[in-house]
Structures are given as structure tokens and as C-alpha cells.
């Protein structure tokens, strides 16, 4: 395993963290949008409380992944920026609106009508951004973005739109959205302080847990036509069977834990389940960064840069990990556990 592989792995870890932490914050926005029933307002308050202290820190995982990508794999970053200009710009607008609307909503006025507008903006941006993020992942996985990818055609549409807009990429978008909503619902069962609210999110978690399976099957079926490399990796590679077995175990455990009310177990297992699916994607296209032809080694920066980046990572981790542990210890410990 080369130095470039290690750094690609680190970037993937950052993406993984963004998915299970930042993703859940987006999912919280989705549940804000779909808050229903007699406890509508309390559901929304719980989402806001849970996201408040941590969403900024969770968001930075994405920035970390981006800066590491352009430091360690500049040509790949340049290619992604060029071919995915449109969806990434839309993702950015979603991120801007989500983050500022959430802040304005919390620190905003006292009038219900105004608060309502921010709440709606926050919720809709939370719905659309994961869809688009998933779509860009689908575009990479489908092999459209490499040098010899399908993004090589003529004309605006076939270069700047075609690669990321097809049934497969959209199915990955839907999958990402459902996964984020699932994670948020599972986490919120643990955050909820009373039985009724917890039951609300338990029902949502179970529902999205089943929907997640459906979305995965749909994406896999579509991948046969649109992303054969990923599909073949996911089915025929040596690691495929154990990975699927672990994922299945995690998925079933998560649902069982939700069913039986083991909220803490459910939280951990759900995060593992989604992470395993993510790593399945990563492994299926290894050693290609941008299939079908740009490998990790092709796109890697000079060794001097990679070594330094690794050093900076070690240094950064020495500061960050204790700080993060502190943040989550202060805010994510349930009052019951403190008592």
C-alpha cells in the first residue's frame, strides 16, 4: 500500500465521518420538514437542540476532505470541479442556505412567521443537498468522470450534465437522502427525553431503515447498466461476500435494537451499517480515484507533499481528536446518564 493509498484512505475516513455526523444533521432537517402529528413542534425542537452545538464541527469534515483532496490529488480535484460544476454549485447553494437558515432560525426574531420561513428554508435545503451530494458520488462511481469516461462527448449537455444526471446517479442521491434520514432518526431516539417523542422517531427510524434496503436494491439494479465496475466489484470481489454479510448483520441488528429499544446499540450499529456501505463503494472502485482510468497513483501529488500532508494530519489529529471528544462528551451525553 503506497503513501497515496493511505491518504486516499484518510480522505475517505473524513467523508465517512461527514456521512455519519454531517449526514445526520441533514437528516435532522428532513425530519423537520416532515414533522407531523400532535408532537410536531416538539419534534422540531428536538432536531434543533440535537444539531445546534455540533453541526458546524460536523460540517468541517467536508471541508477537510476537500482540502486534502486538492492537496494530495490536485488533478482529480480539477476534473471534479470542471465536470461536476453544476451539481457542486447547487450543493454549495444548499449548504449556504441550510447553514445560514439554521443560524438565523435559532438567533432570529421572535415572530413566528419569520421563524417559520427560516425553518422551511433550512428543511428544504436539508432535503435537496443530500440528493445532489449522492448524485455526485453516483457520477464518480459510474465511471463518467475519468479521462476516458462518458463525460468526453461533444456539447454542453454531454460534458457538463450527462455524467451526473441519469437514473443510476439519481438513485444514489435518493439512497444518500434515505441513509441520512435513517441515521438522524436513529440518533434522535437516543436524544429524545420522553417516551412519546422517542416512539415518533423510532417509527421513523424503522421506516427509513426498511426504505434504505429498497433504495440499495434499486441502485444495485441500475448499476448493472450505468456503473458496471462498481457493480462487479460489489458482487464478485473477494471482499464482497464478507462485507455484505457484515452490512446485513449491522442492518438487522440496527432494526432489532430499534425494535427492542436498545437506543445506544442502534446508534452505533446504524452508523456502522452506513459506513460499511460507503466503504463498499470505495473498495469497489479501488485503485481508481475517478474510474474508469484515473488511479490514485496517477492523480497523486509529489511524495514531498504527501509526506507533509500525512505529518499535518497527525498533528491536526493530536489537536482535533481530544477536542472533538470533549465536544461530544459535553453535549451528547444524555442527562439520564449524567445523573
Amino acid at each position: 500500500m503506497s503513501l497515496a493509498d493511505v491518504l486516499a484512505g484518510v480522505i475517505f475516513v473524513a467523508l465517512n465521518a461527514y456521512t455519519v455526523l454531517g449526514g445526520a444533521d441533514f437528516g435532522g432537517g428532513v425530519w423537520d420538514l416532515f414533522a407531523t402529528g400532535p408532537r410536531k413542534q416538539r419534534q422540531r425542537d428536538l432536531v434543533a437542540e440535537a444539531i445546534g452545538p455540533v453541526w458546524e464541527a460536523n460540517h468541517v469534515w467536508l471541508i477537510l476532505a476537500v482540502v486534502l483532496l486538492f492537496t494530495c490529488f490536485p488533478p482529480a480535484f480539477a476534473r471534479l470541479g470542471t465536470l461536476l460544476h453544476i451539481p457542486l454549485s447547487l450543493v454549495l447553494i444548499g449548504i449556504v442556505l441550510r447553514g445560514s437558515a439554521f443560524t438565523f432560525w435559532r438567533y432570529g426574531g421572535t415572530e413566528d412567521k419569520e421563524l417559520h420561513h427560516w425553518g422551511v428554508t433550512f428543511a428544504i435545503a436539508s432535503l435537496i443537498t443530500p440528493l445532489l451530494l449522492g448524485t455526485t458520488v453516483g457520477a464518480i462511481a459510474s465511471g463518467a468522470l475519468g479521462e476516458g469516461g462518458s463525460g468526453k462527448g461533444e456539447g454542453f449537455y454531454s460534458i457538463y450534465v450527462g455524467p451526473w444526471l441519469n437514473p443510476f446517479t439519481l438513485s444514489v442521491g435518493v439512497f444518500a437522502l434515505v441513509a441520512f434520514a435513517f441515521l438522524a432518526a436513529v440518533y434522535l431516539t437516543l436524544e429524545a427525553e420522553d417516551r412519546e417523542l422517542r416512539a415518533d422517531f423510532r417509527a421513523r427510524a424503522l421506516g427509513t431503515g426498511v426504505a434504505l434496503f429498497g433504495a440499495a436494491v434499486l441502485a444495485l439494479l441500475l448499476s448493472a447498466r450505468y456503473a458496471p465496475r462498481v457493480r462487479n466489484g460489489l458482487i464478485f470481489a473477494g471482499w464482497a461476500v464478507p462485507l455484505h454479510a457484515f452490512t446485513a448483520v449491522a442492518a438487522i441488528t440496527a432494526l432489532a435494537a430499534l425494535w427492542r429499544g436498545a437506543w445506544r446499540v442502534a446508534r452505533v450499529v446504524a452508523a456502522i451499517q452506513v459506513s460499511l456501505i460507503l466503504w463498499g463503494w470505495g473498495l469497489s472502485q479501488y485503485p481508481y480515484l475517478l474510474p474508469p482510468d484515473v488511479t490514485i497513483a496517477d492523480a497523486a501529488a509529489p511524495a514531498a507533499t504527501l509526506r507533509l500532508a500525512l505529518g499535518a494530519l497527525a498533528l491536526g489529529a493530536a489537536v482535533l481528536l481530544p477536542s472533538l471528544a470533549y465536544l461530544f462528551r459535553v453535549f451528547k451525553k444524555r442527562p439520564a446518564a449524567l445523573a
Partner: protein
Amino acid sequence: MPDLLAARSQMGVSLAFHIVFAVVGIAMPVMMVVAERRWQVTGHAIYLDLAKRWARGTAILFAVGAVSGTVLSFELGLLWPGFMRFAGSIIGMPFSLEGFAFFTEAIFLGVYLYGWDRISARAHLGAGVAVALSGAASGIFVVIANAWMNAPTGFQLVDGRAVNVDPVAAMASPAAFPQALHMTLAAYAATGLAVAGIHAFFLLKDPANAFHRRALEIALLVGAPAAVLQPISGDMAARHIARYQPLKLAAAEALFRTESGAPLSLGGWPDVARRETRFALEIPRGLSLLAFHDPNARVQGLDAAPQDEWPSVPAVHLSFQLMVALGTYMALVAVWAGWLAWRRTDLAHHRWLMRALALGTPTGFIAVEAGWMVTELGRQPWVIYGVLKTRDAVTPMPGLVVPFLTFTLLYCFLGVIVCWLLYRQILRSPDVPEWRGFYMPGRGKREKGSEAP
């Protein structure tokens, strides 16, 4: 609108928008920490109120700064893939370090904002200090990356490709120190004097208002020293560009002809067609003296390069003049305030000082924007000075006017809302009658319990 111009405009709008939040994000946590510390020492709730208000301000501005900074990190690839392909491996390092600093800032801001009742007073203040320090660090790292674009080092150019890349040498670009110092001071000066100016405005109407008096004190404490030091760091920066980026200096000073004992042009309109600066007040040998500390030094003019490698001389010259004029104003007002405080004058009752401060509210931010105009426009047509032209770095995607207009509208919308929220959340003075008693007429800064910790 040509695509290159649209891309440059979008990047310019994004940077101009983000820099305001970045600047406040560096300095406002310092004010918030000072206020909290004073609350802990004096026990007076007015300081707690101030700390909480500034924390809310930091929260609002940090959130917008975080998302607009995310936009910038993506835009490097969305608009300038040619730049990233060439430079990513060389200057990715300061961006990565900035990522970590920013991460630390986000973590401790979360702890600070939501931890009032959850952690000890000491830990809470510590979290505030961590926010202030990591905010300054992340600003410095980003400026280091920009400094490399102005004075690129740490690689060799062979056939248009960078070889022997040394990211550490790239971070040690000769522009790094003067630029980072100038920008960090600018952040404290601009924010401190802006906050002081706003409270001075309210004190003109109600000089006995204890809330505004305390706010003014702390804001001046943070802003005034930086404003006084800024001309010195400006001199360092100018001497640096005289040596390393002579064309930028020539454009800033509208010096068309290379000459020894070059004069300093104040104001004036650079007429590029006639290659002369009209209506300027000229100080003989002034530029040689300022740029090289030698009245007879030879200063390179624009004629040292072909005209197609000139930046836009009027834009750079006017921005530079504006920055220097506003910076001078801020330094003078800061010295004046310092002098009056030294003389134990009650600042809030000094109407002329309050007027001067109130008038100076936006000056720091305008100066910051103008200064970045000088840095960025003054480097054109290069994106990496002498190495890569901006037009060779832009994305091949057509129709860039669409994202430019979209992001401009988005930012205008956000800007209006942020101003409105800040007014409502921070500036409106609290309605707590007993706080009036905290102020004792005539003693100003000297009253018991309000000395700096």
C-alpha cells in the same frame, strides 16, 4: 459577459463577501472573551450580557463565514481547475492546516455557545480563548496561501510543470510574513473600530448609557492598538512589494516611468493611454523614500513590462489610495482616543471623539476590501505571479455568467439579513434600569471594578 470575466467576478464577489465574516470571526471572539473575563472578575451582569451578545454575533457571522468559506474552497476547483492542477500540491498545505484550525474553531465555538451551563467558568473562558486563537490561525494560513500566489516559491518550473515541489518552502514565501501581519492587524482594527463606532453613535445620543460605554471600552481595547500598528505593517508590506512585485507597486502608485528619486502621487487619475497620472499631488522623492527608505532609490515603473502584462492601473491605484487614506484616518482616531484615555478624559462625553469614531464605523471594512483589490487586481494578469496567467487557469465550462449572478444574488440576500439580525441581536441596548447605576458620571474608565483584568 465573457466567461473569464464572469469567473473572476464570481470569485471576487465570493471573496469580498467572505472576508467580512472572516475578519469579524478573528476579532469578535477576542472581545467576547475580554467581556466574559471582566464579568468573572467584577461579577457585573452587564459584561455577561455583552459577552453573550458578542457570542451571538460571532455565532451568526461564523455560520455565514463557514458556509461562504466552504463555497470558496470548492470554487477553487469549480472556477480555476487549471490553477488547482498546477498549485494544489504546492500550496495545499496551508489550506489543510487552515482546515484543522477552522475545525478547532468550530468545535470550541460550539462548546462556548452552548456550554454556558454545562462546563465550569474556567473551561468556558478557555473555550473562548481557543476560538479566538484558532480563528486567528486559520486566517493566517489562508493569507499564507495567497502570499504564495504573489511571490511563488518552493518549486521549479520545467516545461510548464512544477517539479521538486517543497511545500514548506512554499509556505515560507517572502510575502507570507508581511501579508499575514497586515491582515491580522486589519482584522482587529476593522472589527474593533467598527464596533466602537456603532456604540459611539449610540453614545452621542445617550452618553450615560452604561451598556454602550462598556462595549465601547472593550471594542477600543481590541481595535485601537491594531489600528495604530497597522501603518507600520503597511510600510513593511509596501517595501516587500517594491522588491518582489514591482509592477503591483507601480500600479498602486500609478508610476508609469521607472525613475530614481520617484515622487509619491497622492490621489489623481492614472491616464493609461497617455501614460501619466493627472490631477495628483506629488511629493518629490516620496515614493523612493517610502518604498526603499532611500530618497534616491530607483523605483521600477509600469514601463518595465509590456502593457498587456499591466494590471488595471486606475482600479489598483484608487483602491490603494483609498486603503491608505482610511487606514491613516483610523490610526489617527485611535491615537487620539488613546491620548484622551491616557489623560483620563471620559471618552463617552467627548462628543468630537464620538463623532469621529461613529464616522469611522465602516472604514476598516472598506479598507480591507480595498486592500484585497490591490493584492488581487494588482497581480493580474497572473493568478500565480510570473508563472500562470489567470486566463489559463479558468474552467472550460461556458455560461459562467449564470453561477456568477446566482451567487451574487444569494450573497446580497444573505448580507441584508445578517445586517438586520445583528442590529436586533447585538446593538439594541438592553432595558435593565439598574444598570444605569453602574455608571458614575465623570469618572469614565476609572470606576471601581472595571479595570482590565
